[in-house]
């Protein structure tokens, strides 16, 4: 139901006449198939309303900013999973793989080795890319199921991570971040002015892309979306941008001045943008969807299935590497106590809550963002209203179950109405 070139999905048979029924059709289409995001966005809104009523702190600028940072690890690992879920594969090792990426970043930049930060960051991402690529090679050339390969990988990587941390002398099971840039990935902020400029520029670029895409379709004589929908989209985008600027630029500290957008946000958005671009605008992305939809058809169409599967594993690995760096930045270090297994489950949950199918062929990068925010919202809100860890797990599990139910019901109804 949610497809790659979503800004090209046609408005079939419904000419953009301003009639009321046309509007209703549009709204229904938006709800049903445009992105498939509507139900989960409503769910997220309900969560926000609930926590706002229960806690006066929840909707404060400081807490919302905090929530975004909490969500980062779920969002990035969720995006890493989506590369694979789209092909019907999975990677159970991303949690520990991220830990290894983070550890590489921490170790290379610490006071002993003191490598330039950018080499360390590149090395960290490269290490994760290599690891995932290796899983890909096993899955593709030995025809092993990714579930088992990466399960073995998870156990191995947990060992490798222990080895890495313990190899740094008397670490006591944890290594601190000792480099400013790595620390600032999460804790550094744009100045308020830079926040304004960055977000407005991002909104302007997106709006321009939407409008230009529409314009090009129209001038080619293809039916496009009605103008009002495009304008609505751009307006929502602009409003969201302004809202974020206001939130980020509020002072979050009671003792000192702490404001501006954390660096983690543009990093998330950058990974999201790059992933979405590859998936929707490039051959590689098209082939990843095709492999997930019907691998035999992809093969017969002359697609080098093996190559693109391994490529997707490597994209996933690179995303995992970024996640690992933000993880160590957020925790200010890496310890042997990292719950790598737990993070994998949350990553898959984030993707699925957002609307990505576990069975391949259906999903988008943005799903991980929404799903990750839902998970972070629950964790954040539950902590504010003093719910125990027991309750937190139960509710998170319920939300995941609800997301899957809503998704399958929606899919069934759209399949029935499709004929």
């Amino acid at each position, binding site marked *: 139901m949610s497809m790659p070139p979503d800004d090209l999905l046609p408005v079939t048979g419904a000419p953009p006449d301003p009639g009321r029924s046309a509007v209703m059709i549009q709204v229904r289409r938006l709800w049903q198939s445009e992105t498939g995001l509507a139900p989960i966005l409503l769910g997220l809104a309900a969560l926000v309303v609930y926590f706002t009523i229960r806690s006066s702190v929840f909707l404060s600028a400081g807490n919302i900013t905090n929530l975004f940072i909490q969500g980062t690890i779920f969002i990035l690992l969720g995006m890493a999973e989506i590369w694979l879920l789209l092909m019907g594969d999975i990677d159970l090792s991303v949690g520990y793989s991220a830990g290894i990426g983070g550890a590489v970043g921490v170790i290379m930049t610490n006071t002993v080795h003191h490598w330039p930060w950018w080499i360390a960051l590149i090395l960290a991402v490269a290490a994760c890319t290599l690891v995932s690529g290796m899983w890909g090679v096993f899955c593709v050339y030995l025809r092993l199921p990714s579930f088992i390969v990466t399960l073995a990988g998870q156990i191995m990587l947990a060992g490798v991570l222990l080895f890495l941390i313990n190899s740094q002398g008397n670490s006591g099971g944890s290594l601190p971040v000792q480099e400013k840039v790595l620390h600032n990935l999460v804790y550094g902020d744009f100045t308020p002015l830079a926040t304004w400029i960055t977000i407005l520029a991002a909104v302007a670029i997106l709006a321009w892309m939407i409008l230009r895409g529409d314009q090009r379709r129209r001038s080619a004589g293809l039916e496009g979306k009605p103008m009002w929908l495009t304008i609505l989209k751009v307006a929502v985008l602009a409003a969201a941008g302004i809202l974020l600027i206001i939130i980020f630029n509020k002072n979050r500290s009671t003792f000192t001045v702490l404001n501006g957008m954390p660096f983690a946000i543009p990093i998330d958005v950058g990974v999201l943008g790059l992933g979405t671009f590859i998936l929707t605008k490039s051959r590689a992305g*098209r082939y990843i969807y095709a492999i997930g939809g019907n691998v035999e058809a992809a093969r017969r169409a*002359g*697609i080098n299935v093996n190559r693109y599967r391994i490529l997707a594993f490597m994209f996933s690995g690179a995303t995992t590497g970024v996640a690992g760096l933000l993880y160590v930045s957020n925790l200010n270090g890496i310890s042997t106590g990292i719950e790598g297994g737990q993070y994998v489950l949350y990553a898959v949950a984030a993707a699925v809550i957002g609307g990505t199918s576990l069975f391949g062929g259906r999903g988008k990068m943005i799903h991980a963002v929404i799903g990750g925010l839902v998970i972070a919202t629950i964790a954040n809100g539950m902590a504010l209203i003093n719910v125990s860890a027991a309750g937190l797990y139960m509710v998170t599990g319920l939300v995941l179950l609800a997301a899957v139910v809503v998704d399958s019901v929606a899919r069934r109804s759209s399949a029935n109405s499709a004929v």
Partner: protein
Amino acid sequence: MTSSPESPRSATSGDGPATGGSGDSASNFLLSLRGLAKNFGPVQALKHVNLDIPAGQVTALIGDNGAGKSVLIKTISGIYPPSAGNIYWKGREIHVHTPRDSSELGIATVYQDLALCDNLDIVQNMYLGREETRSGVLDEIKMELATKSLLTDLAVSTVKSVRQLVGSLSGGQRQAIAVARAVMRDSQLVIMDEPTAALGVSQTAQVLELVRTLADRGIAVLLISHNLNDVFSVADRVAVMHLGTLVSEGPVAQYDTSSAVDLITTGGSLRAPASPAPAN
């Protein structure tokens, strides 16, 4: 259309070699098979098959289950290497080892499973593996325009939008998309395996109409079918297989339902016309 000998021919009798330029008529055919055989161990799936497929005509390949129809098309399309015999494409001998070889020659095979991705839309399926790009970025507009105009050309008018997901299409529409994709790739021979097997009456009519349209565009169609009604309504030529042998081949006018049934079930027919064809 072609000045070939038009008499139904037993596969074991008249088999002039199809080397082009020797004054032989085989060079007028798009595809010619001579003495084609295929063994799977001791099992002889194809025995010395001679078959000519002319351009711009629909050749129906009929036969009972296990007669060797599927093995024959898989051999032509490069899935099975032949055990013996030659394949001539426009009079020149060719060797197809992989499906890619045959599709590069211009042979497209539309199998029963159609090989479509349900999660992609019509345009994406049409261009799968051959996407148009503009400086590395998919050129959706160009692909959509071309798809629309091709579907219009082929008179496939039942799809509402080329941006519909293929998974939401009916069986006939899916068949039409699979065929249109073959046409889009400049195929000169389209092989269709039981295209109407799973379809209702009106959708069958649509698909047969499409088959006719292909032939009218000069494309050779090799149509495998169990359904004699379909065969007699759309085919120009008929080829009958029985137990791995091509038992009869000729213009459709020389067959009727009862002779075709005889040929399919017993490999021979007293009612099958044995006289030379009216043309020539």
